[in-house]
């Protein structure tokens, strides 16, 4: 397979031209991935760069993100259990090291006096609201910190600045991570825009309707109004919209499906009490990313976040999610949040792949590159992925593992039995977290049996032999559309020994520490 790489002789002088008809690289998508990639390409002065994406970034994940620069805070019992998962985890560790330079570049372009990095530290709390899953993930975080020799210390939860939960939801344990903070996602995106314009990139406030070319070669893009741009390389970085764009030229059954992980968060102005000065969060929770508050600067705080896999990409918010987030922020983080003033409702779609791993690499049609599938830490990984993709576009070697190649079989990290157990654990966690009530005589083991039966039956009906993650299993079980996509894709590999592997599967080249 040959893919065009950029040569200086190919340079097209697009600067100044509002609507170029040619560019060395067209990046589709103006989220964190597309914007950091454009920035890296401009920094390397490798040619003309056009970024296409609507300025409101509606339905995008990056504009809604909490932008915690978290990798240890995100650890779960799954993170280091298999080589493949470890490889994914270490992507986060490498990404962390890229942020000081990324922020240094952006600092002079920030849109206001507010710092882009809003905090450099995190506190992880363990309260009893989140069921057993919280406990095991809390232990997994500490274990990972120790394995990688990262600093942490146990602290008295009452000493965490700003932390003021209701008594019945108070944390019994907490740890302090002095090197894991957060950035202001919206500030970073605005700074990137300014820096890109300054550097000569062209940002088009439009959408791409389709890729131009065939399943053998992609030669450009067609915008929503029919305008064509010819390109040496087209990078699809359109988040949850990426798959459908790729399918405009390359509609094959074994292209990994991505599902919208619709998430909701809100930004509120603190009206009193001691502010949070660090990220304060629970471990990752049932099907989601845990409850957290992220200081935003200027008296603002970000409260997040929900996650539900849905059929349709939209920027709606479920009333249940509003209740969930508001109620639990007040109960579990700061009871004074009740009178904070909500200044922004954030809603966006995480790009969730069927196997949970990102999709980054050249596609079979030459000239077409895909970068998406980052799920819940794509903001954090963006500067690292930008460097990797810029290398590959220039024909140099990449800096991340080849496991993330987009045209792969789904990465197998669990057996069916493991998948069922995990689904049960997540379902129980979600049950208790949301305050669901059962008749007093109904025990947790009866609830366990109920969820186990659901999972077993779902697999029977789907007729697949690949161990799904708990979120995907929940989604497939809940609707016909989702089930069909999951079943159709997995059936293209059915009976293929490479896909279903036992727990401890050793795909990828995760470190051996």
């Amino acid at each position, binding site marked *: 397979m040959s893919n065009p790489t950029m040569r200086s002789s190919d340079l097209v002088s697009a600067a100044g031209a509002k609507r170029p008809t040619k560019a060395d690289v067209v990046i589709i998508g103006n989220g964190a991935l597309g914007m950091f990639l454009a920035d890296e390409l401009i920094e390397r002065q490798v040619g003309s760069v056009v970024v296409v994406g609507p300025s409101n970034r509606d339905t995008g994940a990056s504009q809604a993100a909490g932008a915690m620069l978290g990798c240890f805070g995100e650890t779960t019992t799954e993170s280091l259990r298999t080589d493949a998962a470890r490889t994914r985890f270490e992507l986060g560790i490498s990404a962390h090291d890229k942020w000081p330079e990324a922020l240094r570049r952006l600092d002079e372009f920030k849109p206001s006096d507010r710092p882009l990095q809003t905090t450099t530290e995190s506190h992880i709390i363990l309260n009893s609201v989140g069921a057993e899953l919280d406990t095991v993930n809390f232990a997994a975080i500490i274990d990972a910190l120790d394995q990688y020799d990262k600093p942490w210390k146990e602290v008295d939860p009452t000493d965490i600045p700003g932390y003021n939960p209701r008594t019945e939801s108070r944390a019994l344990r907490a740890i302090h991570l002095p090197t894991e903070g957060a950035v202001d996602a919206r500030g970073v995106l605005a700074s990137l825009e300014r820096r890109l314009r300054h550097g000569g990139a062209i940002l088009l406030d439009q959408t791409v309707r389709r890729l131009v070319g065939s399943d053998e070669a992609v030669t450009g893009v067609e915008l929503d109004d029919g305008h064509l741009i010819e390109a040496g390389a087209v990078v699809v970085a359109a988040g949850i919209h990426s798959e459908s764009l790729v399918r405009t030229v390359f509609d094959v059954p074994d292209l990994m499906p991505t599902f919208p992980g619709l998430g909701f968060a809100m930004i509120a102005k603190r009206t009193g009490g001691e502010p949070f000065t660090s990220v304060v969060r629970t471990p990752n929770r049932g099907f989601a990313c845990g409850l957290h508050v992220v200081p935003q600067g200027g008296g603002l705080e970000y409260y997040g976040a929900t996650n539900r896999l849905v059929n349709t990409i939209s920027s709606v918010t479920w009333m249940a999610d509003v209740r969930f987030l508001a109620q639990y922020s007040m109960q579990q983080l700061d009871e004074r949040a009740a009178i904070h003033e909500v200044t922004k409702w954030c809603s966006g779609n995480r790009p969730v792949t069927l196997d949970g791993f990102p999709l980054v690499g050249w596609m079979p049609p030459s000239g077409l590159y895909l970068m998406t599938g980052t799920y819940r830490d794509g903001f954090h990984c963006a500067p690292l992925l930008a460097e990797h993709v810029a290398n590959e576009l220039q024909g140099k070697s990449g800096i991340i593992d080849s496991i993330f190649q987009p045209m792969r079989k789904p990465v197998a990290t669990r057996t069916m039995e493991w998948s069922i157990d995990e689904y049960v654990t997540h379902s129980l966690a979600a049950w208790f977290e949301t305050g669901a009530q059962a008749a007093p005589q109904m025990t947790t083991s009866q609830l366990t049996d109920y969820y186990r039966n*659901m999972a077993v*039956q*779902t697999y*029977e*009906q*789907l*007729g697949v032999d690949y161990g799904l993650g708990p979120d995907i299993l929940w989604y*497939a*079980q*809940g*609707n*016909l*559309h989702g*089930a*069909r996509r999951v*079943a159709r894709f997995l059936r293209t590999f059915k009976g293929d020994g490479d896909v279903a592997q036992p727990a401890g599967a050793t795909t990828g080249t995760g470190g051996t520490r």
Partner: protein
Amino acid sequence: MPAYQPSVADTVRSLVTKQLNLNGYSQDLRPDDNLWSLGMTSLTCLGLMLSIEDTFEIELPEEALKEATFRSINTISAAVESSRK
């Protein structure tokens, strides 16, 4: 009643019988009986949908992926017929 090939309805009947474990009662199943009242759940409906698509080698349109489509042998057969056109 929509005009459809009897063979479609027969095939649908046998898939429904198998999926809902109605063996032995298959003859009593009328074409417009409500399958949801006969014990079909969202999960068994999921399996039924996949087996219908596999058997008839069709892809039901997105708008057909809803409870009402799978209400009875009649409604399923109608959906199959229109997908085959």
